[in-house]
């Protein structure tokens, strides 16, 4: 059923109005003589307006803190005017001359003039940074030439620039400048998929030793699925216990579930370090019991294992709570009825009980998966070399390399991936089948 159809069917006003206008031959009126249909339409419009005003603050909040920043991020992932705005003459030359045109004196002159202007306006750093994204090692070429450019260049400009630095003759550099002369670019997305453009302009893979993002996207997806599965395996029995135990006992258990939930994320991550590290509590116990030798202490953290353990623990309440709230509403007499009709306990669970928990399971799985995909601090601290996720690369580009366009492209791909999965989930399970409480 589509959303619109459902709304029409469930909207009492709509039903009454259609009945009133279509059913009776004489026009129904209200007590004060107005046509009933119009009065109803007016009153429901007023109710809708009031409802909208009630949600308006939230809507405004969501737009300001969510829609606008995400829109800006998406824009930034394909827009960077650092070169186009600050190097107008050479950008114009690129626009007038198609790719493949030999670099003539006009182009060299335009470049020299732009470099001088950019050095004087102190925007040369922005220009260099933009080109450096595509051709590593060129930022200093721009800034150092800029320092020499303040006195101006004498024609012939080609010789003057090459005298300043021989790297100006590099065709790759000119190709990068041409590509950067339009502010909109797909290069950041290409780079985020381990791809680049070769000298002919066609898309190729980057050298193997530079390929990292696709592998990290796959790993993020795989680990998130694994963690979702683990939280299900661990959380399902706990939620069942919580829902079926007498109130007093289940309250106590509930506190045990919620206590870590209320504890700081960093504290919980650090606690796992203390427990799992090679000189940690667990390894000490293993050595004391003689399970492993003092030299064979297990490496359980600063790798993928540590990431999975810590993240499963941290995300577990997000699985238990929706499951619990759904399980509590399941009437035990259904299972009893199945049993009395001859079903084994396994069949009764599989065919009667489990299907009724699906809305909670769906909600929990979606919550855990989406949180896991974007997790950052735990893999950063306990992930070591094999437990890194794509979010760690986004953070690196945000704070270290300051390549925000690249961070935005990676984040946009992650967002797109999550939306696709959400759509698949909606097709397979149905999003209206989701129950958080």
């Amino acid at each position, binding site marked *: 059923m589509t959303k619109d159809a459902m709304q029409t069917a469930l909207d009492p006003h709509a039903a009454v109005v259609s009945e009133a206008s279509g059913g009776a031959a004489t026009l129904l009126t209200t007590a004060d003589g107005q046509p009933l249909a119009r009065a109803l339409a007016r009153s429901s419009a007023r109710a809708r307006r009031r409802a909208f005003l009630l949600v308006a603050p939230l809507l405004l909040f969501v737009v300001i803190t969510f829609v606008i920043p995400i829109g800006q991020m998406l824009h930034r992932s394909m827009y960077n005017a650092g070169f186009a705005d600050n190097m107008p003459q050479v950008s114009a030359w690129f626009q007038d001359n198609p790719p493949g045109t030999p670099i003539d004196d006009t182009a060299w002159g335009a470049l020299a003039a732009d470099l001088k202007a950019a050095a004087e*306006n*102190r*925007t*040369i*750093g*922005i220009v*260099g*940074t933009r080109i*450096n*994204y595509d051709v*590593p*090692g*060129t*930022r*200093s070429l721009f*800034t150092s030439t*800029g320092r020499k450019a303040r006195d101006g260049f004498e024609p012939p400009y080609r010789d003057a620039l090459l005298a300043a630095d021989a790297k100006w003759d590099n065709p790759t550099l000119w190709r990068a400048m041409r590509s950067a002369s339009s502010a909109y670019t797909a290069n950041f997305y290409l780079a985020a998929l381990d791809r680049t453009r070769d000298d002919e302009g066609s898309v190729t893979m980057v050298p193997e*030793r*530079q*390929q*990292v993002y696709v*592998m*990290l996207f796959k*790993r993020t997806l795989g680990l998130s699925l694994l963690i979702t599965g683990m939280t299900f395996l661990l959380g399902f029995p706990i939620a069942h216990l919580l829902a079926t135990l007498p109130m007093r006992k289940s309250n106590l258990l509930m506190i045990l579930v919620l206590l870590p939930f209320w504890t700081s994320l960093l504290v919980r991550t650090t606690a796992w370090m203390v427990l799992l*590290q*090679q*000189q*940690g509590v667990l390894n000490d116990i293993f050595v004391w019991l003689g399970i492993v030798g003092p030299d064979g202490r297990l490496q359980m953290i*600063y790798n993928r294992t540590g990431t999975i353990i810590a993240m499963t623990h941290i995300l577990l309440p997000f699985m238990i709570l929706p499951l619990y709230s759904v399980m509590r509403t399941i009437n035990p007499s259904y299972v009893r009825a199945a049993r009395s009709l001859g079903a084994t306990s396994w069949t009764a669970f599989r065919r009667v009980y489990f299907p009724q928990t699906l809305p909670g399971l769906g909600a929990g799985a979606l919550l855990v998966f989406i949180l896991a995909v974007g997790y950052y601090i735990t893999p*950063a*601290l306990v992930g*070591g*070399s*094999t437990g*890194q996720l794509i979010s760690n*690369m986004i953070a*690196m*580009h945000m704070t*270290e*390399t*300051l*390549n925000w366009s*690249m961070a935005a492209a990676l984040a946009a791909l992650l967002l797109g991936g999550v939306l696709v999965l959400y759509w698949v989930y909606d097709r397979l399970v149905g999003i209206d089948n989701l129950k958080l409480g």
Partner: protein
Amino acid sequence: MKKLLIASTALVGMASMASAQGSGVLNILDWGGAYGASHAVAYNAPFEAETGIRITVADADNPATPIKAMVEAGNVTADVASVEYADALRLCDEGALETIDLSVLKPGPDGATPEDDFLPGALTDCFVATDVWSMVMAYDDSKFPDAKPSTPADFFDTAKFPGKRTLRKGAKFNLEFALMADGVAPADVYDVLATPEGVDQAFAKLDTIKGDVVWWEAGAQPPQLLADGEVTMAYAFNGRIFNAAIGENKPFNIVWTGQVYEMEGWIIPKGAPNKDNALKYIAFTTEAERLARAAELISYGPTRKSSSGLVGNVDGKDIPMSPHLPTTPGNIEQGINSNADFWVDHDSELSERFNAWLAS
């Protein structure tokens, strides 16, 4: 009429406030924490006492970020800020900083000109360095009763010095350190690293201990990993190791050979409201004795050569500070100055390669 009177009084009041702001105040944007506290004692209190200029300090996680935002928005409220060398370089190239007239700087106590007295690279168009921190090799003394590690090569020699190591999870510092361990002379490190073969050489050297490395992300991790016995050697911030060794009496020793040091210092954002006071403040705080006093409060080395001899004991203790500073003669020659230009150029490329290497 009454309204007009109120409005005009308010305007006059605002105008007089604005003029007060123009004469006797200075707004500093600093890092906070122990570092900001060292500035408060060594710089701000004596400056206020001597000049009568009232100082207001605001703290930021990294002052370069708000400075960039302020200049872009055209609403600059800070007069002087402490930033890292690479950020100063970047902001200066992007036109976000005032140029600093270096003639305001005082000569050294022996009469040396500032250009001679400051460390190479400490003075640029827009930046005056105040202190030096470094990435150093450190080890747990109790784990090596006989021979002690003393060179970067020892860090990579797990046969001779057993135990795990901890390195910062990133390309910067590690590649330089690996090349020095592989026998490249400190002076040549960045020349070698600028070639593809040099990068391969650095990664090949890192490969030799890849299985024995715990990678750290937060500065607090290396002393913790050393203290827990999780690793026996670390390549970490000198200040963190110093605090654990001197403050908490841990048996950690620093090896200065192979250190990679970086500078921090003052910048003036473009359009600073009290630029003259900012210049006065920079000149005052970068006098040799002031820099030496700040180094007693935190284990970051002074940027003037003449300051080294003036550094006394660790604040509140009976231990001389000099041996623990990256810039002290005898320590500084054994390492290299981090090349900000190189890293701004190659950060993205090498970080990607490092992460691909890490995951393979």
